[in-house]
């Protein structure tokens, strides 16, 4: 098995070589500069390699070296708080090595080799262990990093020791094989779990429209499509900031450099609302902007997923955001077209849908081999060209994911944020999650949600009439429906991500707000029956206060006060 060969042809990121006989997806070092590449096709004695770096100046005849290993991610303490490129090279290290611009031929290990972590074993010599089992712990930033037996390894512990180690120092051995805190995993393969569970716990996000109307469960999958400028990125960032996951993995896949910078500068400044520690302490960022090499972009979703699965295996709830999976699909298309493969729909490769399903199937809540329950929830953004949801990437995604948060540019134009359309969005988890909501929020929560949806649906029907005849022509009771729907839209659905108080709404408050509106609506209905005009109701000072309550410093108190004063205020309206 020769492992050194030579380049036969170079066409952009696709390089063909002869003289090596690697396995599919093995990593290859290309050319004198040893650019990183991956085997994507083998034809006879020819090997087709996709190169993660710019190939300008590379010539036929230069050497290629087969490493015999697939693209792996280094897993271990030190991942949290790091900022990587698509193939898990730390960006700050790349900057130190090559300056402000990304050049090529530089390798940088994913985990720092110098930092020492304090390892405390929880097993002892002579114990029998199996793959994925916890060997001990090491504190990593704000969490406890659990060191797991590498997958595929099991047997008796011959040696294990505590103390301060770097990730490459041996901490013991199992059946003659030395173990370190770092392990490697091929990114394109899902890490195994004991068994998957039904996702019946919500991933709370503090975003009213999501938690109340369209919840996602821990281990669930969601898609956010949206034409450009509908606030997709802001929504994802809000999720990263506020969702009650232990670990956040954010993949900026083929997106804007300036936006990535915003994420990179925003995250370290953010405080985790629960632990009061920097949010970055539980975050891994992967940034591969649109002008960075396309093959690394293709790999970035897999590296991100592998990191997420690794923390899941320790028993953590991980939320993974991929922005945007369309860019990933486009990377596949670009590479596929360079390979001169027969295209499927719109030039995308025929295996597009299979790749997407494989990726989303790596999400889930599971009993892991560590004995703990962990989850990976995936929120994938799709960027349908021209906002056309019938395009292949969106369609293939919608067949797999269970939650759909439909961002709408019409709402954006009205400055309704988050611009999630309440009529076209859906969550298939509401049924499985109802029990949780009843026990943990309020017995009547699911009914309250249905009521809100019903009002919004009615509003949509009435709007069609209003378009024709104007709102003045409607009977008072229908005018009231419009007014109530408006309250739901303005007070519940709209949420200002940049407002200190409004940016996060805890579940009990979400319930109180909706409950208060429902009570207001019920009292209004009675008042209207007593011939009070809807105009009078909508001009009540209490109505205005309710509308602004979410911006009050002491919002919960304000809501309670409004609730207390409501009966009196309606009595004061008089009526028949």
């Amino acid at each position, binding site marked *: 098995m020769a492992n050194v060969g030579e380049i036969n*042809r*170079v066409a952009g990121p696709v390089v063909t070589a002869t003289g090596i006989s690697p396995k599919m997806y093995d990593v290859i070092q290309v050319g004198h500069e040893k650019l990183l590449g991956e085997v994507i096709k083998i034809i006879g004695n020819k090997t087709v390699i996709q190169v993660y770096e710019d190939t*300008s100046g590379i010539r036929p005849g230069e050497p290629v070296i087969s490493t015999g290993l697939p693209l792996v991610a280094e897993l271990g303490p030190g991942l949290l708080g790091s900022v990587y490129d698509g193939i898990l090279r730390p960006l700050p290290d790349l900057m130190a090595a090559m300056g402000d*611009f990304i050049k090529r031929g530089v390798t940088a290990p994913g985990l720092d080799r110098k930092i020492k972590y304090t390892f405390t074993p929880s097993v002892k010599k002579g114990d029998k262990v199996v793959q994925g089992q916890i060997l001990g712990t090491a504190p990593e930033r704000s969490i406890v990093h659990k060191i797991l037996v590498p997958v595929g390894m099991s047997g008796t512990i011959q040696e294990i020791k505590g103390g301060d180690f770097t990730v490459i120092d041996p901490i013991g051995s199992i059946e003659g094989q030395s173990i370190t805190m770092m392990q490697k995993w091929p990114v394109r393969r899902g890490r195994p779990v004991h068994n998957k569970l039904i996702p019946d716990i919500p991933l709370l996000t503090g975003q009213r429209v999501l938690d109340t109307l369209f919840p996602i469960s821990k281990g669930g999958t969601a898609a956010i499509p949206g034409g450009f*400028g509908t606030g997709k990125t802001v929504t994802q960032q809000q999720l990263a900031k506020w969702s009650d996951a232990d670990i956040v993995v954010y993949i900026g896949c083929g997106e804007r450099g300036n936006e990535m910078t915003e994420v990179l500068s925003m995250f370290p400044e953010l405080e985790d609302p629960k632990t009061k520690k920097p949010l970055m302490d539980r975050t891994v960022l992967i940034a591969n902007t649109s002008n960075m090499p396309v093959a690394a972009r293709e790999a970035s979703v897999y590296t991100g997923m592998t990191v997420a699965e690794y923390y899941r295996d320790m028993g953590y709830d991980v939320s993974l955001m991929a922005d945007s999976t369309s860019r990933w699909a*486009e990377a596949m298309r670009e590479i596929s077209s360079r390979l001169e493969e027969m295209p499927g729909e719109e030039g995308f490769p025929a295996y597009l849908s299979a790749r997407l399903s494989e990726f989303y199937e790596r999400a889930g809540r599971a009993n892991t081999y560590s004995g703990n329950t962990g989850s990976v929830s995936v929120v994938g953004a799709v960027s349908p060209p021209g906002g056309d949801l019938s395009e292949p990437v969106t369609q293939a995604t919608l067949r797999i994911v269970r939650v759909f948060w439909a961002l709408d540019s019409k709402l954006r134009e009205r400055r309704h944020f988050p611009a999630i359309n309440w009529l076209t969005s859906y969550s298939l988890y509401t049924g499985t999650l109802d029990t949780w909501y009843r026990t943990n929020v309020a017995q009547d929560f699911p009914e309250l949600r249905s009521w809100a949806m019903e009002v919004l649906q009615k509003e949509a029907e009435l709007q069609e009439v209003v378009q024709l005849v104007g709102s003045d022509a409607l009977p008072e009771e229908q005018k009231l429906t419009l007014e109530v729907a408006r309250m739901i839209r303005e007070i519940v659905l709209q949420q200002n991500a940049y407002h200190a108080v409004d940016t996060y709404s805890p579940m009990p408050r979400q319930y109180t707000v909706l409950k208060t509106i429902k009570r207001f609506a019920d009292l209004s209905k009675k008042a209207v029956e007593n011939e009070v005009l809807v105009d009078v109701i909508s001009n009540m000072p209490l109505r205005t206060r309710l509308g602004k309550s979410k911006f009050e410093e002491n919002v919960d108190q304000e809501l309670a006060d409004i609730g207390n004063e409501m009966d009196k205020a309606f009595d004061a309206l008089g009526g028949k």
Partner: protein
Amino acid sequence: MTSKEYRTISQIAGPLVFVEKTEPVGYGEIAIVTLPNGEERRGQVLDSSHDVVVIQMFEGTSGIERAAGARFTGETLKMPVSQDMLGRILSGSGEPLDGGPKIVPDDRLDIIGAAINPWARDNPREFIQTGISTIDGMNTLVRGQKLPIFSGSGLPHNDIALQIARQAKVLGKNEEFAVVFGAMGITNEEAQYFMKDFERTGALKRAVVFMNLADDPAIERIITPRLALTTAEYLAYQLGMSVLVILTDITNYCEALRQIGAAREEVPGRRGYPGYMYTDLAMLYERAGRIKGKTGSITQIPILSMPGDDITHPIADLTGYITEGQIVAKRDLHRAGIYPPIDVGSSLSRLMDSGIGKGRTREDHKPVSDQCYAAYAEGRDLRGLVAIVGKDALSDRDRKFLDFADLFERRIVRQGREEDREIETTLDMMWEILATIPENQLTRIDRKWIEKYHPAHKKPVEAT
């Protein structure tokens, strides 16, 4: 390196020349094809193997025959750059067009340009005052942003671009922008118009102009924006200038991309454009930005005319996915005689929020613009209703919103081609028209701003 000349051209198709049996040639290397009459043409290696090398010719293949010779320079496309380029007019491939001397290089830079490490980028947050209300007030541009103008044929996008180039400044700093202007496939007449305006206003002395005209080879359009951006990077990151890059017209650039893709017999993507167009455009647009620890910056305003005014056309669509928003010019506003015909409803600046507010523009900027957006959107919806039921059927409240939409277009959107509005003026004007709708309808604005800036509170007169 090798200057061996090969006479083994086996095939010529569209802009491509195929050369057989060469020594190893690097991907992306510059090749020079010499015609039997001694004329030299430049091209770049697109595909290199032991058997055949494919060269994409920058200046077209007309006149090239199999008897022509090809040699390879051993290096990728580099351009000479120098501070003396300011004030110069160059061709789409970088040759002087103004009769001046050749550029004496201070440096030679690769025109492809490397990606900025996201870690090295600095957040763009300095407000650029363009003096145009719809941009400053409603879709604020910041230093390091890429904000395209989506326009259509026959709309005055060139005027808008020129007005921005003329008026743009960073508040509080007296420094003016250096302007790098890359024209791709524009007509001779348009070129003249730009030139005249640059000369008239004295802007040329702080500008570098690259001109690829409509009758220049399409393939040259591929390198024109790269020359412009390489120059901009030199001025910004090596000389510390604030650079404004105007690229027009991206649609012509994309047509050229498609033409090459077709010649290479590639599998086409949407509407025949190549599947890698997103990445290709990103390689241009992403060269805007700021770098930590450097004073210079690159702000880009690409102009593209949407075929058939269709914002979902792949060119506009992909651009919108890469740039940080878009300024959209609308035909109905133009027909109504409003200049600049910028439709704020479909326009957006994604970096606006980081560039406005206290200490940048004014503390009330965000709520005021949000309120104007909401009220204008509502007023425009009512227009549709009025067309059916007539104005009389509207409630009092609705009528106020309807009038607001008209006022907004006449007072805020419309302004003179030479009118340079300070941001304070823009915001005050916005307050003036907001004062025409009832105060309790100003739901997007905090009480404290209403008390401080609302004309009714500033002066004791109740606005009607």
